């Protein structure tokens, strides 16, 4: 009986104490309205009919830097050309690492030759918290019906120092986002073979 009471109490705390709207694979992705670095407003619900990639971004995070030596830009270019909408989301709070004003965001992305549809500025962390974005880079893919189909890491090779990226011993390298887009966009599968992984990287610098 006592155990049942304990279960009841914890269940109550978890269910009512923390309402969660976080993005869940297999169900419609939470809607949001975002302002981009050119002052344009985007509403997720208006983007139906296209695949949407959300890439949580912090230009000074070493994990992000290691991807922006060319790999990330190539991946963006390849899929944006095929009609995918690819957005970088910056949820760093003002004065925190990675926070940028619109002009600087545009300059940075131009300098690094990023192939993005737009950069979403989210200094209050509203979109970040809605999606429970944990790290930079934390990646999400939303299908043309608005369903979240991928939530997780960009690949299975976290950074080990400034230069070397490594997978776990014996594990072949997989870029999860590239594989998912290949399966979804090119092979027209309904779901990617891997739809959920643990994101890695720097924590998102929320307020």
């Amino acid at each position, binding site marked *: 009986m006592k*155990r049942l009471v304990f279960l009841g109490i914890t*269940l109550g705390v978890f269910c009512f104490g923390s309402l969660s709207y976080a993005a869940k694979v297999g169900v419609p992705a939470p809607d949001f309205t975002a302002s981009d670095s050119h002052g344009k407003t985007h509403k997720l619900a208006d983007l139906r009919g296209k695949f949407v990639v959300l890439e949580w971004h912090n230009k000074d995070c*070493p994990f992000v830097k290691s991807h922006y030596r060319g790999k990330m830009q190539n991946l963006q270019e390849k899929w944006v050309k095929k009609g995918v909408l690819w957005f970088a989301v910056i949820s760093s709070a003002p004065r*925190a690492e990675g926070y940028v004003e619109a002009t600087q965001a545009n300059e940075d992305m131009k300098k690094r030759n990023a192939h993005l549809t737009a950069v979403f500025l989210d200094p209050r*962390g509203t979109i970040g918290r809605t999606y429970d974005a944990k790290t930079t880079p934390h990646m999400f893919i939303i299908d043309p019906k608005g369903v979240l189909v991928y939530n997780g890491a960009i690949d299975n090779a976290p950074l080990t120092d400034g230069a070397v990226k490594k997978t776990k011993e014996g594990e072949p390298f997989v870029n999860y986002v590239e594989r998912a887009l290949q399966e979804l966009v090119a092979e027209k599968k309904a779901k990617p073979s891997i739809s959920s992984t643990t994101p*890695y990287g720097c924590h998102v610098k929320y307020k």
Partner: protein
Amino acid sequence: MKFRLKPAPLVLLLLFLSAPFYPAFSQGASHVKVELLSEQNSIQPGGSVTVGFHFRMQKGWHIYWKNPGDSGQAPSITWTLPEGFTAGEILWPVPQRLPLAHLADYGYTNEITFLVPIQAPAKLIAGHMVRLAATVHWLVCQEICIPGGKQLNLRLPIRKKAAPYNSRYAFYFKSARKILPQEIPEDWKITGSMGPKEFHLSLDTGAALSKTTTAAFFPLHGNQIQNSANQISEIEGNTLNLGFKKSDQCSPEIKNLEGLLVLEQKNAGKRGYWVNVPLNNN
């Protein structure tokens, strides 16, 4: 003139007082100092030694546990050892939960020693020296994260006699062993269950848990529990009940929870136990 020089001794005194704590940090912005230490002064043919990677972080900075939690990266070691020598896995000490906004990481602050057992081959010539070389990589974070790496060497003489302990580093090894996780005692019974949003662990130790004040679970794998959510523990008699929230990303096919069950005892600090608990549906 005399008056203007007066503050100098004070500054020197302050420098002197602060110097012994973080002598290396002034030389660069690495925020962490790493040393490779040996518990023993020598190594025996066919014997083993324990080495320790001692990390000292600048105040406010942290490094990570094997599962770093919501962000970060565990340190890694790559060994270059003489023929026949083998290095074991890092013996991960019990971590702390480090909250960051609405997220949480698992790691270590201030200082920590990672112990690694090294096994020597039987065929070794006494009197020779061996060189154990390691490249260690880490990520150290505060508000920002900085990756670091260092090559470290240890030279040990081969001696026929059992290796004597190095008293100079005994404190570090003793402190490290104090917070090493243990295997769960055989007569303890632990069961696990899950509901749609939460996990429960129930531990029966067969003896009163009167000294234990709180408990916490640290998952070995990501995407299973919501790292930042409060864990609720209830202790009564021999039984401990622990409840914590599932991650939104947790696979519905999850069969067991693997990780550290950490019991905090009055005046005795934390004790961690490795558990791998099969889960029943509630």
